[in-house]
């Protein structure tokens, strides 16, 4: 556990010489221990492979931390903020590796029909007709309201499960811009559905078992 205050961390990391070296070494250890705990759902965190991987992540995180010390506003512990930086570095890389063999195009074609598949079960004829009508209506709205890029993003991220960050990279955008694109798409769909007298609850009711 670190006993440094936020101010002491900042002062030491902005200093030169042994104070800075000691602070960097301490922060490196803190981040390494943190990643071993934080990445258990992502990689096997025991063994030498993880140590090498985590060391790479931490070295990159330390550079980012040093580059962005001025952006730390003291609203959390300094170490929490530094852990956040290390987590972003690590998960960005792990996501990229996990999805490196999946192309946007393949996912679009695979997911094109998935949201509109007839649900399992044996609905009554009336219910089956209602479901088919709703599917056709939503498909038409998606086609009419969304741009090609918005449709692709909807199929790939929320429906196909590709991480936003990976999809953004493949679409030549940054993560923020893709989130905004998807938000606009969701708003347009929601508004158009409401204009046609359809609410989320109507759809959920029709497709609930």
């Amino acid at each position, binding site marked *: *556990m*670190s006993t440094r205050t936020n101010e002491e961390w900042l002062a030491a990391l902005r200093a030169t010489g042994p104070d800075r070296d000691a602070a960097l070494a301490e922060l490196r250890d*803190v981040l390494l*221990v*943190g*990643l071993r*705990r*934080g*990445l*258990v*759902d*992502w990689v096997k965190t025991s063994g030498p492979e993880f140590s090498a991987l985590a060391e790479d992540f931490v070295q990159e995180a330390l550079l980012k931390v040093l580059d962005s010390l001025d952006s730390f506003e003291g*609203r*959390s*512990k300094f*170490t*929490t*903020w530094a*852990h*956040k930086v290390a*987590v*972003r570095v*690590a*998960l960005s890389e792990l*996501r990229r590796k996990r999805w490196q063999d999946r192309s946007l195009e393949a996912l679009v074609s695979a997911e094109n029909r998935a*949201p*509109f598949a007839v*649900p399992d079960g044996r609905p009554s004829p009336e219910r089956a007709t209602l*479901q088919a009508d*709703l*599917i056709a209506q*939503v498909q038409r709205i998606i086609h009419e309201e969304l741009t090609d890029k918005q449709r692709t993003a909807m199929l790939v991220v*929320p*429906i196909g499960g590709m*991480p*936003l*960050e990976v999809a953004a990279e493949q679409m030549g955008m940054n*993560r*923020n811009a893709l*989130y*905004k694109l998807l*938000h606009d798409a*969701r*708003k347009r*769909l*929601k508004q158009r*559905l409401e204009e046609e007298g359809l609410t*989320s*609850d109507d*759809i*959920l009711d*029709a*497709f*609930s078992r």
Partner: protein
Amino acid sequence: MTLLAHMMAVTQESECTCEEAYSLMDQYVELKLQGAEVASLMPLIHAHFEMCGCCRDELEALQRILTEGEA
């Protein structure tokens, strides 16, 4: 279809971006671990974590780091 419906149900007119959520993630997670009602205190950030899988993954990893040991 139900996935689409759920997405529509939680869509708000104004939502914060990944960058905004990231900038407050450390504060959000500390408040959450202190037992604060983060959904009320930081509603836009909270809603973003509900909607964005990438940011939610990062939040969960950060939370695990802080929960299982001293930062």
